[in-house]
């Protein structure tokens, strides 16, 4: 269980560091090991993508990082350091003041995350007013500026959510998330339910905003090829664990884990038609009884005897790393 597993940048500009994070769900049927031994870091201005099938724990990770887990979810152990401060175990009140100031989230299907009976501008203003001493007119003015920043028009502030398209609402939530200039922006499946063109423009807008404002992005999606075109670095999760990490370019050219390979084949490239080409056979592991060895072994075309018996070690190869027995001996670890 090494600490420095991923390719680390210089310590100074690391804004978010997650170390040895375990998250459980306490259910009636037992403990679900949703996230296990998660370790990664995020540098200022960096865009890191987390990919994996649904149920792999990536959304849980996103919420854990933002201090949004509620029972039955529980952090079992680990650290989540935001600018050196550990967020694990902070009170709800303390977390409330940090969240949105320093780390903000654009939740899954964000376009459904706006109250249907309040104006967009007011909902953004509410976020500002909850954190900063300000008057409502000032906050509304700020909201208009934020909407213009994400490519909307100032008068959209007076609109209700149902008057805007899905893409517009998505942008409005992004504006809301950027309202207090956080250091980290978490995007949880930001493009599902949007058509391909809108997806591309939204992700483009996020890159531009990052260049302009310098925040770091944690982008979570099941769509690996989408990440390849957007992010600097990619983490692949499977069954609650990290199975591969590397640069977008490196993963595209040489995926090291068979699961990453399968994910790449399961989706067409961003510009193509949106349909599954080669869905991965089999089901993800049951996290009520986490597998002893590699969780992917039952579905893996390259499986060996020891895959099921022993967990593969984290093997670092240059700026890439993966947990697979196939890499054993090749690595430098």
């Amino acid at each position, binding site marked *: 269980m090494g600490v420095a597993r991923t390719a680390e940048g210089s310590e100074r500009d690391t804004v978010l560091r997650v170390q040895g994070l375990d998250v459980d*769900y306490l*259910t*009636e049927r037992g403990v679900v090991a*949703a996230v296990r031994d998660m370790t990664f870091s995020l540098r200022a201005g960096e865009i890191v993508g987390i990919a994996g099938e*649904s*149920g792999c724990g990536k*959304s*849980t990770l996103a*919420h854990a990082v933002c201090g*949004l*887990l*509620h*029972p*039955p*979810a529980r952090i079992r152990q680990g650290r989540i350091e935001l600018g050196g401060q550990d967020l694990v175990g902070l009170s709800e009140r303390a977390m409330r003041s940090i969240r949105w100031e320093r780390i903000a989230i654009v*939740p*899954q*299907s964000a376009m*459904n*995350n706006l109250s249907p009976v309040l104006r967009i501008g007011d909902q953004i203003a509410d976020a500002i007013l909850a954190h900063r001493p300000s008057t409502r007119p000032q906050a509304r003015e700020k909201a208009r500026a934020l909407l213009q920043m994400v490519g909307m028009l100032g008068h959209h502030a007076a609109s209700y959510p149902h008057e805007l398209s899905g893409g517009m609402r998505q942008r409005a939530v992004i504006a809301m998330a950027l309202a207090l200039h956080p250091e980290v922006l978490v995007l*949880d*499946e930001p493009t599902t339910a949007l058509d391909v063109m809108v997806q591309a423009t939204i992700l483009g807008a996020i890159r531009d905003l990052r260049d302009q404002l310098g925040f770091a992005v944690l982008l979570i999606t099941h769509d690996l090829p989408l990440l390849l075109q957007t992010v600097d670095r990619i983490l692949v999760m499977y069954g609650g664990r990290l199975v591969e990490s590397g640069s977008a370019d490196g993963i595209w050219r040489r995926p090291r884990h068979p699961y990453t390979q399968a994910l790449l084949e399961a989706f067409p490239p961003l510009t193509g038609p949106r349909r599954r080409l080669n869905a991965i056979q089999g089901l993800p592991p049951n996290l009520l009884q986490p597998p002893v060895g590699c969780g992917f072994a039952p579905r893996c075309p390259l499986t060996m005897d020891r895959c099921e018996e022993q967990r593969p070690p984290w093997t670092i190869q240059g700026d890439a790393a993966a947990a697979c027995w196939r890499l054993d001996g090749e690595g430098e670890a």
Partner: protein
Amino acid sequence: MRPWAHMREEPPPTGLGRGWLGGKGWAGVGIIAAFTLMAVFAHGLAHYSPTATFAAWQPPSTAHWLGTDDYGQDVFSQVVYGSRASLVVGGLAGLLSGVIGTAVGLVAGYVRGIGSEILMRFVDLMLVIPALALMIIIGAFLPSVGQGAQILIIGALSWLWMARSIRSQVMSERERGYVAAARIVGLSDGEIMLREVLPNVVPIVIANLVMVITAAILVQASLNFLGIGNPATVSWGSMLSLAFTDDAILQGAWWWIVPPGICIALFAYGFVLLGNDVLDRYARGREG
């Protein structure tokens, strides 16, 4: 996965296991059963005939457990016999309403088209008109309002909410896989409605039926209180009607006022308990 789904509250543990009914439901059944027994064995339970007369305005005593009214009739015996009217009229009117409500809800929910649209518009329209006032009109003009007439009047006008509730449930059932499967197999619409959809909405039907019966019991009491009904038949409502017009309040005759009201409320509450429990269990079963 729905967004934030993992953050939601788990359904609370039931505590009593997932039986057919919970503690509250059984309490409701117990209350209803007790009153049913009272109605069936009224002859053995009551000390006197409900119309036998003694000294008037007697407070409770060992001879007259709940005293006597202004005619000198034994209140306890009247309460015991009065359960029959509530049971028969409330129960049958509720059942009649239940049958109409279920049928209308099923058809209007399952069949698409202008006909069912018009039917529901009509239901909406009727819902606006105060039902009790409508019943008063009908009752006031009938030469006599026996129990049969009461059942018909209440039953014919109490199914509107139920039809709406069942319709919306049926509309969501219609979209489920088993309905499509039944269609492919070649079942007719009528067969699908009765054999496939109906069994799946039974809990909703029961919960609604129970509420309709509750309402029927209360409405019957109200009608009797208004003097609509056969004054010769003893019922809890007609007892209270008489107590009111004959100034039981000014006589301080609480023993004449309290027991019939408690009986109506308790009997109706039994159905409320049962209905809530059925609905709770159904909702919980759907969640998890």
